């Protein structure tokens, strides 16, 4: 098994797993505590429109997906400021319209593009140097954002009305969290694909949330868990020659089930 580490594509995949896990651990925690999972799902699926458009125009896929995802995130943020009660309808709309745009542009592109499947189900083994630079840059931005504004982010996430009263620009931070979520979704698509991206953003963060006393503790645990799940899933997919994205998610889900069972058994035994 150790000899596979000499291959550049494996080294890239492991590095991508680490970078994306740090990003999704942190941003996934923010999505979870702000109860924005459906919203992140909407952004993820709408980014398919950007992927389709990029393929049609011959542009870099990450660029197209990022622009589309950021546009969707800002649109959802603006709608939620005006129509907070019914924002779910608009998220569903953006989700479906983005996918529809992507499908139509792929239809209009001459020839069948086999790479498209890798964006639906992930292709961590196909990560190249440009992808790694994009992931590393985003990780630095995310870490800086958390490092500089942790207290404001914590206040806005816990009690936005109170934070606003204390002079924190709650709407600005909400938009910033959404835009970073959009970019995190785009890099996570490379690892597990847009169909499975929400599981990668939520399973490690849910386990971390149940076992953490603080938001930063949750972010650290979620990042570590995500790294373990991603690398384990990658190793299993290599060993059994199965799709890496699906393998990563099943490893995560298995761990979650075991964790919940262990927690339940601990609760029952503590009564006696």
């Amino acid at each position: 098994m150790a000899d596979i580490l000499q291959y550049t594509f494996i080294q890239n995949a492991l590095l991508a797993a680490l970078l994306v896990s740090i990003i999704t651990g942190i941003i996934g925690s923010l999505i979870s505590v702000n109860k924005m999972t459906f919203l992140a799902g909407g952004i993820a699926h709408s980014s398919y429109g950007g992927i389709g458009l990029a393929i049609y125009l011959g542009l870099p896929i990450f660029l197209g997906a990022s622009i589309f995802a950021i546009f969707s995130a800002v649109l959802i943020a603006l709608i939620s400021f005006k129509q907070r009660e019914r924002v779910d309808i608009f998220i569903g709309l953006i989700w479906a319209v983005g996918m529809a745009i992507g499908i139509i542009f792929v239809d209009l592109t001459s020839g069948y593009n086999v790479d498209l499947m890798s964006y639906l189900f992930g292709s961590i083994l196909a990560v190249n140097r440009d992808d790694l630079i994009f992931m590393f840059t985003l990780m630095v931005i995310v870490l800086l954002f958390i490092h500089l504004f942790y207290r404001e982010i914590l206040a806005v996430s816990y009690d936005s009305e109170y934070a606003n009263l204390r002079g924190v620009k709650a709407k600005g931070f909400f938009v910033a969290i959404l835009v970073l979520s959009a970019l995190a979704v785009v890099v996570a698509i490379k690892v597990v694909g847009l169909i499975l991206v929400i599981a990668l953003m939520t399973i490690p963060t849910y386990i971390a949330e149940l076992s953490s006393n603080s938001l930063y503790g949750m972010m650290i645990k979620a990042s570590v868990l995500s790294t373990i799940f991603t690398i384990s899933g990658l190793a299993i997919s290599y060993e059994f020659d199965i799709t890496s994205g699906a393998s990563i998610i099943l490893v995560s889900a298995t761990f979650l089930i075991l964790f919940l069972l262990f927690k339940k058994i601990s609760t029952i035994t503590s009564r006696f």
Partner: protein
Amino acid sequence: MKLLEGKELYYKYRKDYVLEDVNFKLNSGDFFAITGPNGGGKSTLVKNILGILSPTKGSIDISFEVKNGIDIGYVPQNTNINLEFPITVLDVVMMGNGAKHKSINRVFSFKYSSLEIECAKHSLQKVGMDCFLNSKISNLSGGQRQRVMIARAICSHPKLLILDEPTSSIDVQGQKEIYSLLKKLNETITIVVVTHDLTVISKYANRVLYINRSGYMHDLSNKNFALKDNEHICEVELMQMLGANNG
């Protein structure tokens, strides 16, 4: 000493007036209750006082400078708070202190300075929760959580403490404890409490402002209105008493 005065206050949400010609005056040391039916404009009035909303007409004069809510402590209804949020009591209380010590320890903002921790402990001592400093907030009871919210609100030593239905999701014993605590805090802080609990008004408040949906308002601040201790009243009785006082 006059602390706060609302004059001919109107607030319109979309096409409808939620507040109409509301007048009130609040003196330093008051325990001021705002009551009335659901949708009557109580929370809207509080948000106008806090500056979250601006009156459509009329004015609210505050006798002290308010910057980022520092001089007004606020305990919101907290209906939107995620109860499972991974956060400690210290983190929550520090939210009330953050604006005052914004320049401290910004480089590594996960950590609090010893000065900040002392300040948080002091606030928690006042509400009897200092031994829970590092506890996860979701492990506390409803009454304990509300005490932490009060500690957060008084952390910056405000002149005025406003609580929006602070006992709405707490059991009877917890409610009594919260109001006893507020009465004690009232020795040094002016308190405004939005409540449906008329018994609370009779026991603790020295002034009552009744607002209903159509904007009828009874300002009793100058009418020597105070209900006796241990007196239990219903809303109809309160209205009759208000009517008698106004008549």
